């Protein structure tokens, strides 16, 4: 009867260019695709922002 409210959650995927480890985290302001962001926790490679996307949930 009542329309469900839709909310979009913003995510950033970081990927290690060396070992391929992927980390999904909440989007933070200033995130830009393909920018290097942090050191990989599994190897000594650098993590790069691979994707920025939104997932819609109904409340």
């Amino acid at each position, binding site marked *: 009867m009542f329309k469900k409210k839709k909310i979009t959650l913003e995510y950033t995927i970081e990927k290690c260019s060396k070992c391929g480890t992927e980390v999904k985290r909440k989007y933070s302001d200033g995130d830009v*695709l393909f920018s290097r962001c942090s050191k990989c926790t599994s190897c000594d490679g650098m993590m790069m922002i691979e*994707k920025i996307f939104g997932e*819609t949930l109904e409340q």
Partner: protein
Amino acid sequence: MSLVNFTNFDFDQLFAMSDDTNPLMMLIWILPIFFFVFYGQRIQLYVTSGEIKKGIKKLDGFRSESRDELINYVNKNLKPVDDPTAKINRFIDYFTIMPVEMDPNGIVDKVQHIVRSREDYTREHVRSLSPQMSDIELSKVQTLLEIASSLQMIYKIINHMYLTAKKQNNYPLILPLQMILPFIMEQSEAMKEAIPVFKKGQPVGDGIGPMVVGKMMLENQKETIAFQTSLVKSEFEGRKLFLVKADGPGSTVGRPADGLEKIVSENKIDAIIMIDAALKMEGEDSATVARGFGAAIGGIGTEKFQIEAIATSKNIPVFSIVVKQSVKEAITLMTKEIADTADDVRGQVNEMIRENTTQGQSIVIIGVGNTGGVP
């Protein structure tokens, strides 16, 4: 004394229409028929008007919301010299008069000239709001202004059509409005939802083309090939690749046709591959990847015309790969499904290169779309 006994109808008498039928009952049947013949259209007008009025109220809300958001953004982030409200109000009301079409010869150049003049004028006047504004901020404000301006125009047109129909009590005039309103509302809602995305500089669904090409450009030196357009020269399995996309991460679509023209004038090109977002049909799944022939590029058509003209004059085949999505998905934050297609599209580009060219040949790959958030 009661004239009609409402609790005790004689149904035989009521439906039989025989000679002994109550004349009062006959009147009760006949009067509504006459009433609806003469006033039915007006009743329908009132019912439909209610629906349209609700839509117009929503559109009014969207346009004022988008305007306020733009003014707040400029005041908060760009530290303008003076109060920007009056200037922004003026920009929002700017209109574009398209050239006369009676003699279509040369019409594309005329349209391109008018559209580019408008873009250049807006850019310079947006810059005057705050002289220290970076190019990325400038493109953001320009896009937000474009959204506010479009919402204002949509509201004005729909309101005009509604008020005219109402003034003339003209139901047939209100019918097309009732039919197009759901489409208009869908587009307007999408534009309203796009505002925070462009403000944050996040990638939109339309950015899938530049996203794929942008990733192929990594580790190579970028050069400017045309206004707000980048080129990277690269290699793939013995072929020379010319990768073209709009300059990111600002919100722009660049001028890929000008870029292509320059590349073709200096090199022998054997194929053009274009990657873009395309509107999905109702019932089609979002984020479906499809391949085809021809220039995959939207907009008012001037870029497409220019690309087709170059390809035809040099006899270069044009291939395209599109990622299907809705209007809303194209201008709001990229969905996970669309972002996940990037690797698949890249694979299909490689396959297309192998299938259609041989070693030693040169290919131009154009990532078409808005580069907001895509460097």
